[in-house]
């Protein structure tokens, strides 16, 4: 009696295993027949290990030189214009030397640098403090070094604005839509209550175009891979003396200024 119950259990166990295995085998046999939808990059997309920018300030001397660069960015990213400076939204703007490079000014700075407008934008830091403080991971660093924002996820806590030592981030205190001169339909706007900033034209890199400011700069701005020793930016960095904003903070800015 005992031995027959034992063999019954054995057979029952093996049969259960066989029955359970059949659906698994069926799934494995069927996969590969119908192609699953997938996602991919545009084959023309520009790729890099760490994107960086070199700004040749010798070629951008006056506000008039900076204007087309700033205007094109404002236009293609639907950046609103507010008369109230407290509501200002800026991705790329001009700033004086003493504001851009505090603690780097010499006692008797030469006149050219002292009153020259400097093109200022997000530095896409190697160690971005804004990413560390973001509680929702709305701000994150991409594998190619671009510090990106997912506006869907931003809750408007503004920790990133407190963390950013460069003032590169702006908060939408009001609905920006009515304050955009002409809506650019290829790019979304933002909504009230989110933070925004420059993203090195990620949408243009994705289709194989250089950032808009670089494209209209007539060679004053160079953009490329800082990790590639043969890139144009690395060549400029080898041949020229460059400075970065607030290097002592250890954020590792990826925007360099030839002065």
């Amino acid at each position, binding site marked *: 009696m005992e031995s027959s119950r034992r063999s019954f259990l054995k057979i029952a166990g093996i049969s259960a295993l066989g029955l359970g295995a059949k659906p698994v085998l069926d799934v494995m046999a069927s996969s590969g027949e*119908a*192609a*699953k*939808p*997938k*996602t*991919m*990059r*545009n084959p023309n*997309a520009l790729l890099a290990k760490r994107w960086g920018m070199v700004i040749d300030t010798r070629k951008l001397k006056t506000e008039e030189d900076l204007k087309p660069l700033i205007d094109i960015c404002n236009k293609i990213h*639907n950046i609103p214009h507010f008369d109230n400076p407290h509501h200002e939204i800026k991705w790329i703007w001009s700033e004086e030397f003493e504001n851009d490079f505090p603690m780097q000014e010499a006692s008797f700075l030469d006149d050219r640098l002292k009153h020259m407008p400097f093109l200022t934008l997000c530095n896409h830091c190697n160690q971005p403090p804004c990413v560390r403080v973001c509680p929702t991971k709305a701000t*994150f660093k*991409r594998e*190619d070094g671009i510090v*990106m924002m*997912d*506006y*869907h996820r931003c809750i408007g806590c503004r920790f990133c604005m407190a963390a950013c030592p460069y003032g590169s981030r702006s908060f939408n205190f009001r609905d920006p839509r009515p304050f955009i001169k002409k*809506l650019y*339909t*290829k790019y*979304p*706007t*933002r*909504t009230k209550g989110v933070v925004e900033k420059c993203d090195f034209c*990620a949408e243009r890199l*994705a*289709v194989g175009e250089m950032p808009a400011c670089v494209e209209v700069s007539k060679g004053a701005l160079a953009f490329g891979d800082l990790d590639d020793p043969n890139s144009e930016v690395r060549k400029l960095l080898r041949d020229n003396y460059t400075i970065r904003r607030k290097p002592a903070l250890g954020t590792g800015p990826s925007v360099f200024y030839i002065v």
Partner: protein
Amino acid sequence: MKMPNNKKMYDKGKVIAGLCIFLILITFPFWYNLGKAAPAPELKLTAKAKAAKECVLPTQTMKADHMQLLNEWRDSVVRDTKRIYVSSDGKEYNMSLSNTCLDCHGARAEFCTKCHNYASVTPYCWDCHIDPKEVK
């Protein structure tokens, strides 16, 4: 021993009248709206959408799960830098709500809003994304 018969209901008239009023009031929304159900919106497909016959996924899946698909698209575009969707029949689509979905489906008021109103959902896609047809 026989129990005393105390099945007498006090204030019978008032209690029953009260119960009737209560029942009428609580069922009021049902019979007031009887036969007045809003008809399900009829979607008018654009000529372009009709010619394409099928969306990026089968129609039934799109009807039920387009919101999940849009979330996947968003994550793929923003986080994985992959902006092209290859459907199971091998067609490539640029993952863009304003410039791919609406390009085929027409104005959002005619396509999105109609159904969303009927289903009483208010997604906030259009707080940021632009319907190119609404821009003068």
